[in-house]
């Protein structure tokens, strides 16, 4: 089954996020209060290793499993959508302690009330789709 590797990658992701407590509302509060290095260590390590890997992938023109060269798309250059959209995201992140991945990991962990948060996030995504032409990007 071709999709199995993605399910396995997802399982690994869910375990990492849970076991490092990155799905915890408490840890997100600790981060936004600068009272522990934990979350900064996680994100910082991932970015440093990720940046080295991306550099090497580009330098040696590494191919993916389908045989095509790995291309990383550049994000569109502008600022309003990133600053405004990012800030709106941050408000919700600090309130619920969950960004999109951890919402679902938390469901598996047994936090059923997270379904309300997921439902809200789908509403928010839908709302963006409805009014996106009126927003500065």
């Amino acid at each position, binding site marked *: 089954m071709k999709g199995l590797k993605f399910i396995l990658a997802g399982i690994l992701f869910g375990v990492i996020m849970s076991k490092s407590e990155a799905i915890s509302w408490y840890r997100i509060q*600790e981060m936004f209060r600068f009272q522990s290095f934990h979350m900064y260590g996680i994100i910082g390590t991932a970015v440093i290793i990720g940046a080295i890997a991306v550099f090497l992938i580009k330098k040696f023109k590494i191919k993916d499993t389908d045989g095509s060269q790995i291309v990383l798309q550049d994000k569109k250059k502008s600022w309003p959508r990133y600053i405004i*959209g990012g800030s709106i995201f*941050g408000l919700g992140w600090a309130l619920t302690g969950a*960004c999109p991945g951890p919402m679902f990991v938390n469901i598996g962990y047994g936090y059923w009330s997270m379904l309300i948060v997921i439902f809200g996030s789908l509403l928010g995504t839908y709302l963006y789709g409805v009014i996106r032409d009126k927003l500065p990007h």
Partner: protein
Amino acid sequence: MIELLKQPWPWYTSGISIAFIMILLLVYGKSFGFSSNLRALCTLAGAGKRVKFFDFDWKTQKWNLLFLIGSILGGWLSSTVLKNEEPMHLSAATILDIEKLGVAFDGQMNPSAIFGADFATSPKGFLILLVGGLLVGFGSRYAGGCTSGHAISGLSNLQIPSLLAVIGFFAGGLIMTHLLLPYIF
């Protein structure tokens, strides 16, 4: 081995593993970004008939939806076979600060004061969780990505837009934590 995995993982183990997932998905020809699933789920629910933004072939995101299903299974594994019975070691300063908000530290993964059935099904609690989710969903699509797409994938690719988005994530998070939360809970 299983005893070792049961322990809370240190930040470096987690950071290295997250980078590994990002690289793995690149090697599979995909790009690590979780919030794209929210758009695909709207499309699956039929939003494409009404709103153009959702009129796309969700099957291009099938791999990501499988990743989502895996992440739920990963959460379940962590709360069962890999469960660590010891209470979480949260910083003492955070415990004091959130107690002032009226959120008692219970040593679990998430506070029952917020995610327990009593609060979550009360009108106030339901509204807080719903609006919080709405902000995350709206904001991540507006910004074109969430923590995985911008903070991990984007910063690893040295994208200035992703840096702006991460600055936004923190601006919003700091405003919520330090200015708004005292009035909410």
